[in-house]
């Protein structure tokens, strides 16, 4: 170390740094990898221009190739002129955009949905941006958000009541996804703690609950919520269909969440518990201040993973008669006005789902980076 100055500091060889070096190391490190790289490039080269052409350059939006406004499928260039080189006919999405976003929500009240969407973003802000000014107050709003959203969307307190069978499209997908995930998370934590509890009654109940729910498919639970739940409720109490589905979805998600968090709890060394107890923390203090923050931190990838899974599983509600984003798409295709445009509908629905699930996974990466979950717990 002392004679550092005797060495001339040389730059690393060009071929190992910069773009070139990166390519060499990651894409062409040996001939198998090089071959795979070339193959993938070839496919992308074939695919991307074709897809862009189909979805943008040769596609119809409001008007067809003759410049006419598209009001039904027969106006679509690819239907009117099958010989020609025409791409997607997005008019089906444009004309039915309202339905895709809100279902059959009455249009003079739709500002309530838009306001809810906006407030959702506000409620998410303190979770997304750590250094946002007034975070403490915003968090309070985030916690109150579900109630605000309920009143806005459903009605009451002077708002006209919009029964949930009028809801549809992205609205239903988001209500199930957001509420399902948000309610299941605290529930899952409680279940996970309960399952590890020293009290046999609590741990047995939690274990039974988790294993029962994980043992049946979501479809069965949905059916149960839809068809059986009303029979167990006292006479006269008629729970709304969407609420019943939401209960089923939340319980399902909570059971999975509980196991994910239990995995995180499992990874916390005994010493952490002992240390917490030795400074005199109570059970709840210990969990809240020492154990859970660490356990949740290591579970983030799995938490987001199950959440994304749930978000996509919400499409199963078609089976019990709710029209989510995909259901509205199916409806559009079953109308003789637009039939046959299934590629457009499925690509659009996939895109919307992708935007949400991809954002969720980006958020998880950001959290992981921020909390450095990758680092060995013992060492940090």
């Amino acid at each position, binding site marked *: 170390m002392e004679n550092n100055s005797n060495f001339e500091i040389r730059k690393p060889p060009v071929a190992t740094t910069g773009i070139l070096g990166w390519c060499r190391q990651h894409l062409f490190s040996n001939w198998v990898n090089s071959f795979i790289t070339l193959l993938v490039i070839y496919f992308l080269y074939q695919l991307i221009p074709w897809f862009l052409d189909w979805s943008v350059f040769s596609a119809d939006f409001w008007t067809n190739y003759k410049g006419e406004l598209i009001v039904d499928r027969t106006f679509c260039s690819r239907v009117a002129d*099958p010989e020609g080189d025409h791409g997607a006919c997005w008019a089906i999405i444009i*004309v*039915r955009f*309202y*339905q895709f976003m809100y*279902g*059959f929500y009455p249009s003079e009240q739709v500002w309530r949905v838009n306001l809810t969407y906006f407030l959702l973003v506000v409620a998410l802000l303190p979770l997304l941006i750590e250094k946002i000014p007034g975070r403490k107050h915003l968090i309070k709003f985030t916690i109150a958000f579900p109630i605000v959203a309920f009143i806005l969307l459903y009605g009451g307190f002077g708002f006209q009541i919009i029964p949930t*069978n009028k809801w549809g499209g992205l609205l239903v997908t988001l209500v199930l996804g957001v509420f399902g995930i948000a309610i299941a998370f605290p529930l899952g934590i409680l279940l996970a703690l309960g399952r590890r509890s020293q009290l046999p009654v609590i741990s047995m109940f939690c274990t039974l609950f988790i294993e029962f729910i994980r043992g049946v*498919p979501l*479809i*069965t639970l949905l*059916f*149960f919520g*839809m*068809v*059986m739940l*009303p*029979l167990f409720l006292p006479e006269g109490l008629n729970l709304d*269909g969407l609420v019943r589905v939401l209960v089923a979805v939340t319980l399902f998600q909570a059971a999975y969440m509980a196991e994910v968090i239990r995995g995180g709890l499992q990874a916390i060394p005994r010493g952490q518990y002992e240390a917490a107890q030795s400074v005199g923390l109570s059970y709840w203090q210990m969990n809240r201040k020492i154990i859970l923050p660490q356990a949740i931190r290591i579970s983030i990838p799995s938490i987001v993973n199950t959440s994304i899974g749930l978000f996509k599983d919400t499409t199963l509600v*078609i*089976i*019990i*008669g709710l*029209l989510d984003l995909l*259901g*509205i798409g*199916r*409806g*559009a*295709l*079953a*109308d*003789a*006005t637009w*039939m*046959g445009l*299934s590629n457009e509908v*499925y690509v659009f629905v996939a895109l919307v789902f992708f935007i949400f699930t991809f954002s969720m996974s980006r958020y998880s990466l950001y959290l992981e980076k921020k909390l450095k979950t990758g680092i060995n717990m013992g060492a940090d």
Partner: protein
Amino acid sequence: MKKLLSIFAVLAFAFSANAGTLDDVKNRGFLKCGVTTGLIGFAAPDDAGNWAGFDVDVCRAVAAAIFGDSSKVEFTTTTGKSRFPTLASGEIDMLARNTTWTLSRDVNLGFEFVGVNYYDGQGFMIPSALGVDDATGLDGATVCIQTGTTTELNLADFFRANGIGYEALPIETNDEARENLFAGRCDVYTTDASGLSATRAQADDPDKWVVLPNIISKEPLGPLVRHGDHQWGDVVRWSLNTMIIAEELGVSSSNVDESKGSNIPEVLRLLGVEGGYGEMLELSNDFAYNIIKQVGNYSESFDRNIGPDTPLGIGRNLNALWTDGGILYAPPFR
């Protein structure tokens, strides 16, 4: 899964109150009707979000009969599997979802079919490139089939009787079946012939698909209600019959007002000018007038939704009136 669902259905039925549906509906102010998740011509929402279709019209007729307003319906979509538990649990008041009237559904599941609005039969659709012109030539084919349907059972019978093998690809909804067929994941789609016409109309190039001539079953499709509430069954039954009788008598939405001055006694009875037939059903005496005025008679509904001038282009065939060589026949309105 199937077992479980029928247990659900039976249990739900055992628990649910099964009287007074008409009063429930009147108090609620709208009818709850179960339809498909989307089948061209039979049930689908239009651009403005209003449901339309041949099955939808049956629901609308019942709403018109009860409320004098065909828009007082709330539609619930059901799949082949979910339709029965949904009806049994009381989640819907009636089901109009191309459902075949069979003994076990009528008796064992505890439902009551109130009539037939479409006489159908099960057929097969294949890519014309397959070069098969008879279903017995389909040995070893992969067949797309909707779960929870009669077609699933008929298929097994047909192939067994003909001593040929097949591989079933079970599917939940019509639109999944369609996409699987068009993508080549199955060689054959089998379901009610009406459903095949609907599916074929959706192809980019319908000429690439053929519906084979074999019709392997009877599929009388009709609306159904829960067993045990006869008053309610009567209301739905006579709403459907009204549409058929109106066609027989030549009364349509366009001439229903003049027909009130007709000199044919049955027309006068039908439109409530004479006799108290509505009262017998605990409806208003002009219930049939409202159905015809707002929804139309059977042929109007047929032509509007699935007839020759629609993309489905289905002919009347079996569904022509008995006087025109079909088997559509309604008991007399008296």
